[in-house]
């Protein structure tokens, strides 16, 4: 699987060493560098930020990726679903992908330093940047980047101090899914999983991750405006406590929390769950299996995700990684990938290439107003980013609160 010839190892070590030293992220010591990680992002000076590749070289022959299930399809799931094989032929970079089920897993895997890149959601990306696990990206080396929707460029979840850390794969929303034969009338508000969940007690489902606290915050933003929630990821003590309280109440109606989507598919098919958060791709699979479901974006808005392809600060195959990043945002690949998964593409041209001509309309690909209502996953940090200062709850506190909520 991994050839370890001396020459290749030496070259890789050299490249890695250079990248490493510059990104100050020889992550082995992330436990020793108290402030080391935080300064990485701040090390931007006029000129090339440290750790960024200057020029594209020859492909190294392979690239090791961590990705969400369904993001890197090479025909082995379904022969018609493949945007990898032609990449491999063109560049000679053999693609090896490891599926991550949650952002937690992806961060843990990236930290090992043995992967070249990851499709990181917003709750993982800032964590990776802060820890020095990913390197800044030289967008000049990625020719397809100019074709990306403006609404996806320079986003706070992947750009720090004007330094870009990746290229966007696409964006999508967490939707409200329900069994049309059980949940009537058709809901248009998240209330059906919060205070109006009573009739469906024991059959409500929610995403099993601390980041779900933000969904409670989104609901509170609409229903309790005097809490003053602006950004559902920047919650101070009072806002946080209100969200946690809401979640503890919801717990009594929850049948099961889902983290891998097979579980959700089985739950909706079998009838364990009749209403709850979902991804479009799950709805597509269920509809394909003739299960009576529908999904809707409720009026309060929703959390969502925009995944960014990021390159490891210890990437052993940086050139192949850059080539992959360029490939996945190229119109053809991006159209195929985002249509399969069920999200809006990042590439403008992709809209002309999707099999379903309405794909971009359905997913509001260039509807920036729509995406104003979507709060992309983002790692909560202590620094509120506004005039409240550093009083917000950071992710480790979200995690502990989540443990208490689940009980």
């Amino acid at each position, binding site marked *: 699987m*991994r050839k370890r010839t001396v020459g290749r190892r030496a070259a890789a070590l050299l490249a890695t060493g250079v990248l490493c030293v510059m990104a100050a992220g020889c992550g082995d010591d992330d*436990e020793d560098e108290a402030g080391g990680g935080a300064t990485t992002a701040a090390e931007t000076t006029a000129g090339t930020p440290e750790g960024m590749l200057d020029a594209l070289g020859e492909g190294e022959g392979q690239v090791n990726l961590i990705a969400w299930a369904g993001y890197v399809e090479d025909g*082995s*799931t379904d022969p018609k679903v493949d945007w990898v094989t032609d990449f491999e032929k063109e560049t000679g970079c053999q693609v090896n992908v490891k599926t991550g*089920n949650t952002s937690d897993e992806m961060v843990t895997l990236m930290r*090992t*330093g*043995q992967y070249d890149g990851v499709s990181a959601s917003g709750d993982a990306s800032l964590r990776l940047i802060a820890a020095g696990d990913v390197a800044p990206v030289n967008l000049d080396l990625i020719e397809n980047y100019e074709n990306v929707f403006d609404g996806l460029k320079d986003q706070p979840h992947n750009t720090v101090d004007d330094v870009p850390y990746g290229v966007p794969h696409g964006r999508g929303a967490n939707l409200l899914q329900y069994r049309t034969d059980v949940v009537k009338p058709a809901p248009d508000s998240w209330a059906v999983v919060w205070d109006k969940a009573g009739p469906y007690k024991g059959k409500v489902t929610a995403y099993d991750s601390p980041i779900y606290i933000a969904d409670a915050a989104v609901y509170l933003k609409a229903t309790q405006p005097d809490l003053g929630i602006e950004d559902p990821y920047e919650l101070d003590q009072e806002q946080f406590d209100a969200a946690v309280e809401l979640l503890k109440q919801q717990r009594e109606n929850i049948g099961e929390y889902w983290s891998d989507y097979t579980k959700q*598919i089985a739950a909706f098919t079998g009838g364990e769950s009749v209403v709850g958060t979902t991804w479009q791709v799950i709805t597509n699979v269920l509809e394909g299996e003739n299960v009576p479901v529908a999904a809707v974006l409720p009026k309060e808005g929703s959390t969502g995700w925009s995944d960014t392809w990021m390159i490891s600060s210890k990437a052993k195959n940086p050139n192949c990684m850059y080539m992959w990043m360029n490939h996945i945002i190229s119109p053809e690949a991006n159209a195929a990938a985002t249509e399969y998964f069920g999200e809006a593409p990042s590439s403008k041209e992709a809209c002309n290439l999707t099999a379903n001509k309405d794909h971009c309309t359905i997913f509001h690909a260039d509807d920036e107003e729509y995406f104003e209502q979507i709060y992309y996953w983002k790692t909560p940090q202590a620094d509120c980013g506004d005039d409240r200062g550093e009083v917000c709850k950071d992710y480790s506190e979200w995690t502990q609160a989540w443990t208490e909520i689940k009980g």
Partner: protein
Amino acid sequence: MLRGLTSLTLAFIYLPLLVIFLYAFNDRRSLVWPIEGLTTEWFGRAIDNPGVRDALLVSLKAALGATLIALVLGSFAAMAVARYRFFGRDAISFLVILPIALPGIVTGMALNATFRNLPEPLGVDLGLFTIMVGHATFCIVVVYNNVVARLRRTQPSLGEASADLGADTWQTFRYITFPQLKTALLAGGLLAFALSFDEVIVTTFTAGPDQTLPIWILNNLSRPNQLPIVNVVAVFVILLSMIPVYFAAKLSGESAGGGATGVAGGAR
């Protein structure tokens, strides 16, 4: 009455396996009951799937390596404990069983942190080697127990007699000790192999980008399109393993107590 209870227990043990077997032929992708149609499509897909083949290869290599290491280390420790008296002898059994008795996630986290934080010259990447190391650590006890049990039942006087007859240490080992241990080592080795083959928690932390078969299954269980293939793979492995299991059972029968541990700690 005893026979009835035994049959019931066996039925209980095999019911889920029958379910797996049934669902390998399910023509729908989702896990609904009752099954509506049957198909053998997944068998073909499983054989063609390169991911399965690679994962199977990695699993076999890792299990082989781990077994060899465990055989050496386990028998060394067993010989020391069974034949000599020394300070801390009782603690050895305790030490040896720790890796299997402590939660897999603890062992995994600890080894993972160590591997990642070793200084550069010793530094290892997570991969096949680290998988082997992780597995060997909890496989040692399997071999150890088998060999200790066997040594307890054989007489040390045979070794002394051999020495009296002029054999040196190597010859005694080769002609006397080793034949006595052979079946115990084989039984222990087979069971260590089984342990390593199905392990998932420690492997998650020590595998890096390499995929063993259980890791492949874990990755693919969350992809509904691959679910039926996973069932096929499981059925395959069970059927294939009937042969080594049969031999392990026969050999374990001879070293009665030792056989049990080999089995223990398997599905982690």
